[in-house]
């Protein structure tokens, strides 16, 4: 009887030791796997947050933000054209075109030579630059400040 109790106790101890060993062994494997699955390096993320002391935005602040965004877009657009020399040449053409129109307004006449010079200067402009320049010339033609010296269209 006592021997049977010793055998049963030994069996229980063995079972308990097996169960404990299995559990600790399993945990060790999972820890290793989890470490292997982690990324070697975490990429830092930078976020720009503007502090705000007031929940309401004034009209002036909105205007300032819009101006800032438009200026950024303009810079991006100029960069997108590629060669800075192209951008510089375009600006130079715009200046030349404005000079031709200013001279005509001063002289009060628009000749074929003026037309040809303006067309040559306008070749490299974009539509907004062309609009700004023609928006100076055409009102002067329509209100009589500048007179065509030839028949036909000013451009």
């Amino acid at each position, binding site marked *: 009887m006592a021997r049977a109790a010793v055998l049963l106790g030994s069996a229980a101890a063995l079972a308990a030791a097996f169960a404990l060993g299995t559990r600790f062994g399993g945990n060790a494997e999972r820890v290793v796997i989890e470490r292997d699955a982690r990324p070697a390096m975490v990429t830092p993320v930078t976020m720009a947050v503007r502090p705000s002391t007031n929940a309401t935005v004034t009209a002036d602040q909105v205007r300032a933000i819009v101006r800032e965004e438009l200026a950024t877009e303009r810079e991006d657009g100029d960069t997108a054209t590629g060669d800075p020399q192209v951008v510089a040449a375009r600006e130079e053409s715009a200046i030349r075109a404005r000079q031709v129109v200013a001279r005509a307004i001063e002289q009060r006449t628009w000749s074929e030579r003026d037309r040809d010079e303006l*067309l040559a200067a*306008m*070749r*490299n*402009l*974009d*539509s907004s630059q*062309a*609009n700004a320049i*023609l*928006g100076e*010339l*055409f*009102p002067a*033609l*329509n*209100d009589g400040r500048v007179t*065509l010296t030839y*028949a*036909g*269209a*000013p*451009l």
Partner: protein
Amino acid sequence: MHTSMRMATGALVLGAMLVSTGVATAGRKEYRDVTVNVTERKASGSLGDARRNGTIQSITISIRGMANYMSGTAAFTDEDGHRGHCFTTDPKMVEALASVRSDGLVSVEWTSNGECIVVDAYTSSRWSTKEQ
């Protein structure tokens, strides 16, 4: 006999000519001189009539393709020498100006800075074709 046949033939030919002339001149006709109103910023006229009437009237439409945009201009001169001009770089307006034909009537309106805001281009048998 020969004389009466010749007279009959002549009468037939004359009749045919009259009929054909009548057919050629049939149909509704309208004349549209060039008008320019710089106060209201608008101008209009028929290209054929501007050419035909022998005064200083004129209408000139120009379309130019540049590297980065297209432009169109319209220039009108009425018989008193008044001039009206407008320009555009809006592709739809340029397209409308480009559609003006030599037997067309064109009408434009513009803003204070001379930019075309209305371009109407009509083509009709009622208006004269541009002559040489």
